[in-house]
């Protein structure tokens, strides 16, 4: 390994730790879960209530569950099933993404739920 290699690796690891600290300091247990399909907000549900939510898009359906303050993707007819296998989430900023359906499930804080943070 050359010197430049070591510098590169150190810088990347430093960035990773920096970002991680930044995200985790900001993260707390979220208040709401926001479900967005194709850039459009479909629902904002409180984490305090256990619910099942079904989203229909042109490409298929997803069923999102809220239970004991945790959110997970219970079922989806997407091809890769990455969203279904994703661990359940509950901290602000955590997301479950179903790329084939362009669907994002994200945890937002109490105040943040008022604003639409979707870009584009």
């Amino acid at each position, binding site marked *: 390994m050359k010197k430049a290699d070591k510098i590169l690796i150190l810088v*990347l690891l430093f960035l990773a730790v920096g*970002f991680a600290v930044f995200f985790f300091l900001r993260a707390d247990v979220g208040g709401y879960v926001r479900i967005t399909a194709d850039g459009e907000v479909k629902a904002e549900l409180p984490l305090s209530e256990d619910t099942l939510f079904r989203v229909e898009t042109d490409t298929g359906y997803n069923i999102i569950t809220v239970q004991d303050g945790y959110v997970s993707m219970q079922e989806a007819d997407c*091809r890769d099933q990455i969203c279904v296998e994703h661990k359940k989430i509950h901290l602000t900023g*955590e997301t479950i993404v179903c*790329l084939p359906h362009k669907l994002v499930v*994200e945890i937002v804080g109490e105040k943040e739920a008022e604003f639409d943070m979707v870009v*584009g």
Partner: protein
Amino acid sequence: MQGKQVAYYGLFAALAILMGYVEMLIPIPLLVPGMKLGLANVIVVIVLYFMDARAAFFISLVRVLLSGLLFAGFAGLLYSLAGALFSLGVMTLLKKTDKFSIIGVSVAGGVFHNIGQILVAALVVENIKLMYYLPFLLFFGVATGIIIGVVARMTLGYLNRRL
């Protein structure tokens, strides 16, 4: 193009596709969307050093298109393509500076593969929040990049003696 070159292109393209397939067979816990071992990157790094950037570009392109067609379906094609080309671009630049060894080049390739994929994913779902996973992907990209660099260097030593 000489016959030998044609044979190398075919051989490395086939190996790259095979590596992608082997990777799909290994079940890794999916903590983070976009997390990949990047085994196919071993071949791309080897080609970059054993042949040149042009060859690495075409072999990446063939690999992504054929893997998409054979296994993954075209839906994931855009992400793979973005990741592969972004990663190769950065690796080519770093190699040109001559300041980095194959390990540094491979680490940059691994990390930028992940960043390229997550950028396209963020654009498609129109949600920049996907950046939440960046630290994991950076860390993971560094780890796999080092391993891939070491493997590529060992393989290159063998290739240069034999071919």
